[in-house]
Each structure stands twice: as C-alpha cells, then as structure tokens.
C-alpha cells in the first residue's frame, strides 16, 4: 500500500473517531470541566453577591474558624463512617441468602428488597418524615412491642435525627448494593459452596471466607460509590428538615451548607466554592485510599 493511501486512511479513521465523541466532549468541557475550574478560581475570592475581591487563602482560614462548617464536616463524616459499613454488611448478608435458589418465594424477596431504590429521594424522605413524627407509626410500633417506654424525638433531638438520616439512607440504598453482589455471586461456581458444606464449614464461615473474598472487587466498587454518594448527601436532609439541617444543625451536611450559603442567604459564592473543594478533596482522597487498601490486601 502506498504511503499516501495509508495517511488518507488514518485521517479518515481519526476524523470519524473524533466526530463520534465530539458532542459529548464538548458538553463535558462546558458543563463539567469549566465549572470545576471556575469553582477553584472562585474559592480565592471573598465577598457577598457580585461584590467580590481577591482574598488569597482567606476562605481557607475562614473555614477553620467557622463552627457551622466544622459541624457540617463532622456530620458528613459521621454519616458515611457509620452508614456505609452497616449498609454494605447488610447488603452482603441479604445477597448471600438470596443467592440460594432453593428458598421459596425467592423472586418475591428479591423484588421486595430491591424496591426502595425505585423511590425518588424526595418522596421517600417525605414518607419517612411522616412515619417518624413523635406520635407517628414508628414510635407507636416501638412502644407497642416494648422496645421503648417514651416516644423518641426523631426530628427534634440531635442524636436521633442523625440516626433517622442513617436509617433512611440505609433503607433506600441497601437493595441497590445487594443487586450488585447478587449478580456477582451468580457467577461464582456453586460447587465451591457444596464442597465447603460437605467439609462441615458452617454458614457464617462460608460467608466470611468464601463469599466476601470472592466479591472483593464489587465490594470495593460499591463502597466507593456509596461513600461518594454519602459525602454529597443533600436531598434527604433537606426534605427531612425543611432545608435547615436541624435540629441545631445536627443533620447539616456540607452540600446543604453550600446550598444555604449560596441560595438561601445573600450569596457568598467564593466561600461556598471553597467548601465545595473540601468535598472534591474528600472524594478524591477516599477513592484513592480505598483503591490502595484493596490492592494492598491482595
């Protein structure tokens, strides 16, 4: 083949390659790359509304002296440190049990446990708010079975408000994670379990020594997704607390604080952008750590 002909083919190939990906790349450049860089730029400016002036690292200094920010940071970290392990464990256990085709009504159980992830975040938050009112259905049930002797102030006491948020997210996302594990388990050779069973390995040990190691890549993937999601928590807390993150800022998350700083009060674009970079750094750091930890163990 002549050199000129090869060059023409390569140009044809390249031109088509770029044409197919161009619309996406253009949109990503305008609506993702530009804004994220613009946020970084804004974080060096202080002031209210459009009256902004260069402040260097002034916003970072302000962060350290802002008790509301520190509370939002603590809340956000508390949420994912407690919630993600609980949910992942629960999802794994459910998947391990649901992987047993010999159980009756298995299809019903699978669909039922998966169903919460069809609900919109706003709709389920509103439902939870009505269920967890002081005289609501949950307190009534807990009183009736004798687990508590006085109603819990789910929406009025700081500690219980945090518990409610954790319960709510766990309800919404456990089935979602479970589906990933179930799909991965169905590719695992069943004979491994049979052999272990014949050797007298108890069910919990099969779970810990066979199921969990087999699913490690999927567990890593879902842990990262869940952590990133929880760091960005917004819809639930906004709708459980009328946008305030109450009581006494107990459920205020970083995203909700950014929203309030920008759209509820006189906007502090620069300071809010600085906080958004705290989220960016947290997401990047945690994803890196989780990848590193998984690689280290193998």
């Amino acid at each position, binding site marked *: 083949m002549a050199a000129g002909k090869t060059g023409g083919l390569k140009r044809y190939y390249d031109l*088509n*390659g770029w044409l197919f990906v161009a*619309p996406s790349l253009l949109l990503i450049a305008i609506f993702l790359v530009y804004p994220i860089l613009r946020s970084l730029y804004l974080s060096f400016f202080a002031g209210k509304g459009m009256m902004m002036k260069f402040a260097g690292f002034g916003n970072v200094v302000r962060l350290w002296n802002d008790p509301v920010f520190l509370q939002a940071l603590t809340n956000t970290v508390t949420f994912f440190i407690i919630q993600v392990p609980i949910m992942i464990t629960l999802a794994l256990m459910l998947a391990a*049990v649901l992987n047993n085709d010999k159980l009756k009504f298995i299809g019903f*159980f699978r669909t039922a446990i998966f169903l919460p992830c*069809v609900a919109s975040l706003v709709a389920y938050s509103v439902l939870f708010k009505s*269920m967890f009112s002081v005289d609501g*259905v949950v307190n009534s049930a807990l009183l009736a079975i004798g687990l508590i002797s006085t109603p819990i102030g789910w929406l009025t006491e700081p500690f219980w408000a945090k518990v409610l948020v954790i319960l709510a997210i766990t309800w919404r996302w456990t089935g979602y994670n479970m589906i990933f594990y179930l799909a991965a388990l169905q590719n695992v050779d069943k004979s491994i379990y049979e052999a272990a069973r014949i050797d007298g390995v108890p069910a919990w040990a099969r779970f810990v020594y066979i199921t969990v190691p087999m699913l490690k890549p999927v567990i890593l993937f879902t842990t990262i997704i869940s952590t990133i999601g929880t760091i960005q928590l917004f819809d639930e807390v906004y709708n459980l607390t009328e946008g305030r993150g109450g009581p006494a800022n107990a459920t205020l998350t970083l995203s909700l604080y950014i929203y309030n700083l920008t759209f509820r009060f006189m906007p502090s674009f620069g300071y809010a952008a600085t906080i958004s970079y705290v989220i960016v750094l947290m997401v990047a750091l945690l994803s890196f750590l989780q990848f590193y930890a998984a690689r280290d163990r193998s």
Partner: protein
Amino acid sequence: MNVSRLATTVLQYVFLGTAAFLSIFPFIWMVISSTNKSIDIISGRTGIGDAFGINVANFFSQVDVPLVFWNSVKVSVLATLLTIVVSSLAGYGFEMFRSKARDRIYALVLLTLMVPFAALMIPLFMMMARSGLINTHIAIMLPTIASAFIIFYFRQSTKAFQTELRDAAKVDGLKEWQIFLYIYVPVMRSTYAAAFVIVFMTNWNNYLWPLIVLQSNETKTITLVVSSLASAYYPDYGVVMIGTILATLPTLLVFFVMQRQFVQGMLGSVK
C-alpha cells in the same frame, strides 16, 4: 434434615421476611395514608380512612397537576433521549475508533465520575443566570446530557458488538454514520432500553439542580412540588401523600414493566 440445618433455614426466612417487610412498608404506608387526614397520618393511623377523595380534591386545587406532570415528563424524556444519543455516539466512537489520544481522553472522562455536583452548581448557576436561562427547562437539561457513566456503559456494551457486521457494511459502501444508525442501533436495542430506564429514573427524580434553577410555579416539576408541599409549616400530609404517589407511580411502572432492563442497566458498569 438435622436441627441446625432447620434452624438455619428458619433464620433465613425470618431475616428475609423482616427485610422484605421493612422495604415495602413505606410504600404501603404511602397508599394507606393517602386515605387518611393529616392529623391521623402523623399520629400513626394504620387503617384505611375515608379522606382519599378530599385529599385528591385538595391536591388538585393547590397544584396545577396536568402542567406539573407535563413539566416532569417533558424534562425527563427529552433529557433522557439526548443523553442516550450523545453518549451512545461517544461509547461507539471510543471503542470502534481507538487511538492513543482518544484513550487518554476517555480516562479523563471517567475521572469526571468523581466530580461532586456541589462543586459545579455555583458556576453552573452563574452561567445560566448570565445566559438568561434561569427558570427554563433548557437549563435543567443541558448539564445532565453528557454523562460519563452512560458513555462508559455504552463503551462496555459495544465490546460485544460484532465487528464483522461493520466490516460487511463497509464493503457494501455504507458511510460511518449509516453503519451506526442502521446497524449498530438496531442490534444494540436492549442496551438502549436499559440505558433509557436508568437515565429516565435519574432525571425524573432529579432534585437539587431543578431546585436551584426553577423558581416559578409554571416551570416546577412534580419532585419540587412534593418537596414544597411537605416543607410547609403545617404540611397537609394527606395532600402530600397524593403527591408522593404521583411522583412515584411512573418510576414504579417503568420498573415493573422493564425490570430486566432496569437491573441490566444498573449492573452495566461492573460487567
């Protein structure tokens, strides 16, 4: 069957039964509560009441239901179609026309999966304000169209597309866009269906960005309406329940009709 085996089985059923009950209960609660008065709902009434008609009437008098529903449908369906067109082109392009430069850019595209929306919303809001797009549906859709996740999904699925089909079409003299439109799209229709379900759900339930951009009652989506009804000082929960039912019904319907595609779409990323 020995005793410990039997105990294990019973334990499994108890575990699954509890999990299934807790998973479904809020949906049942939603339906029961739609028949009760607000005061009965927050005092935990679990019986069917007789206020369903009143709740529906109140909901329709407080909310322009056809308009709100139309807003939600319009925004979700249009944004979903655009996302699928643009992302499938990209997924196909990245896989079929591989080059060093494009592989590098693809890695960067995947990196954007980690970018939190909180870090985008302020500049996006300023951008829309400058372009006079605040309070328009275009502003809602534009930032959602390019999705790294869906590009990734289409690229992964394209790996199963047989290149022989493409080579044969080329011999027949079809242009690249014709191959994509007349061969790739029909062959990959189950991939498209799964992507549609997943993207539609995301758009239908989208909340934070519409909350920022849509400020008048004429443009609001059902999600925003439910949220604002429930955040009133004394919310009428009977009315709120009608709203949550309307907001949940389309996604429930899509889920039950296309359950297989739904699960396939969700799992698309790990295959």
